[in-house]
């Protein structure tokens, strides 16, 4: 094996790590806010709100992320005059913002289902008991519903975070040079796909391993009384 080449590739690839992480975490953070909003809409008694949320989730979970990225970045370019007039063209012109928007809408759709599942798992008796104690509205959510739902949803949300870190690789198709984009560039220059895959793959595995450990710590932190084995960890659970 050519260690010099591996090392120089490594030095070139780590330059892309900040962009990968930045896109992953900003889309996950903003996506979570939208996911909670969507989950609330899905449970709303106002049917049109529920329909909008259901439709959003259906479309974004039913189509490939890459199509969503292309639709936003290339597709919306067709409406440039209108977007210009509205003063938002600077946003849709930038591959970074378009990628961020596509990633965040996509993860919000999957996240909404996870949040909804978490909320559904809250035993009704707990809510009744809290009501009997005089809790309602925000207090009920803050003290009873949110903590239970969070414990239930965190393992699935951890999966979603890993999937999003991998999904950031798609932004390389709209010229953003994160780890996969740089890997593609090095491969096209050198045609040494195996070595580059080895190094880039190791970088992703290292990131994902770290994140998995952090999620496991967070799970333990929010529910130290729960035994690891009794928690519903869905093996091979996928969403994308």
């Amino acid at each position: 094996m050519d260690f010099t080449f591996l090392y120089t590739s490594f030095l070139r690839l780590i330059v892309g790590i900040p962009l990968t992480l930045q896109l992953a975490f900003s889309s996950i953070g903003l996506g979570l806010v939208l996911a909670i909003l969507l989950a609330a809409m899905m449970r709303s008694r106002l049917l049109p709100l529920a329909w909008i949320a259901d439709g959003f989730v259906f479309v974004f979970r039913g189509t490939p992320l890459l199509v969503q990225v292309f639709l936003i970045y290339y597709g919306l370019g067709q409406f440039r005059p209108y977007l210009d007039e509205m003063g938002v063209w600077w946003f849709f012109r930038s591959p970074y913002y378009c990628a961020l928007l596509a990633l965040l809408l996509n993860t919000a759709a999957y996240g909404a289902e996870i949040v909804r599942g978490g909320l559904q798992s809250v035993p009704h008796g707990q809510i009744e008991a809290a009501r009997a104690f005089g809790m309602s509205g925000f207090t009920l959510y803050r003290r009873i519903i949110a903590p239970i739902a969070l414990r239930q949803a965190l393992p699935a949300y951890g999966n979603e975070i890993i999937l999003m870190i991998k999904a950031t690789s798609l932004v390389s198709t709209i010229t953003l040079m994160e780890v996969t984009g740089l890997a593609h560039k090095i491969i096209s220059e050198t045609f040494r796909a195996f070595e580059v895959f080895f190094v880039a793959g190791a970088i992703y595995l290292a990131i994902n391993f770290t994140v998995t450990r952090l999620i496991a710590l967070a799970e333990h932190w929010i529910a130290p009384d729960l035994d690891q084995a009794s928690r519903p960890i869905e093996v091979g659970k996928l969403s994308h």
Partner: protein
Amino acid sequence: MPPKSFFELMQWGPQGWLDEMTFATGLTLAVAISGFLFGLVFGTIAAMGKLSRRAIPRRLADVYTTVFRGVPDLLVIYLFYFGGSAMVTAIAQKFGAQGFIGLPGFLTGTLAIGIVSGAYQTEVIRGAYLAVPPGEIDAARAFGMSGWRLLRRIIGPQVLRYGLPGMGNIWQLVLKESALVAVVGLSVYFYEVKLGDLVLIYETRFSDLLRQAHVAAGSTRQPFVFYITAVVFYLLLTTASTWAFRRAETWATRGLRQV
């Protein structure tokens, strides 16, 4: 020339793009099915490895599932597309060929999707196998069944039943993942040779759905129209799959007590 309307663009035939988009949907489906079947082969082998009593197959299967579930699919597609071609070129040059030899995109694309989906299928197959009650296997052995017959009569049908919901999830994943082959430009050429006084060769080139949308968007300068059409076609595929898998689950659990 004024821009064409949506319905003018979406005509069937040489004037519009509907026929191209429909064939492209067919190719996307073909890529997904082949990728899924490759994945079934890799997944079964890796599940056997994980269930093995020996340490080496277990370790190898663990490495396989960890790597291919932890690395972006696009990176794997690049590995197969460029790596596969580089390997074939190197071998060909040993035999005196010159230049760069590209591998057919269909093969490398479906193999890459197969390797990735196989890593996910491993866990489903393993879980489904472990869900088969050991008592049933003991009973079958007591009846004198072993090897192939045990697999075919007792284990196989139950693995299929327990694994079906998980496989449905993976099929949806594969269907959406197949869009990634558009990045390396997968296309299939069909040749039609007509014999007569003259030998005519027609060449038709098919691309996958996303690639086709990309090409049409470039040539008509109406990208939104074509990407939104691609969205609709993908939704048709995923919705039909959801329905089909629900039917299959009903069929596979027929005669079973419902809880």
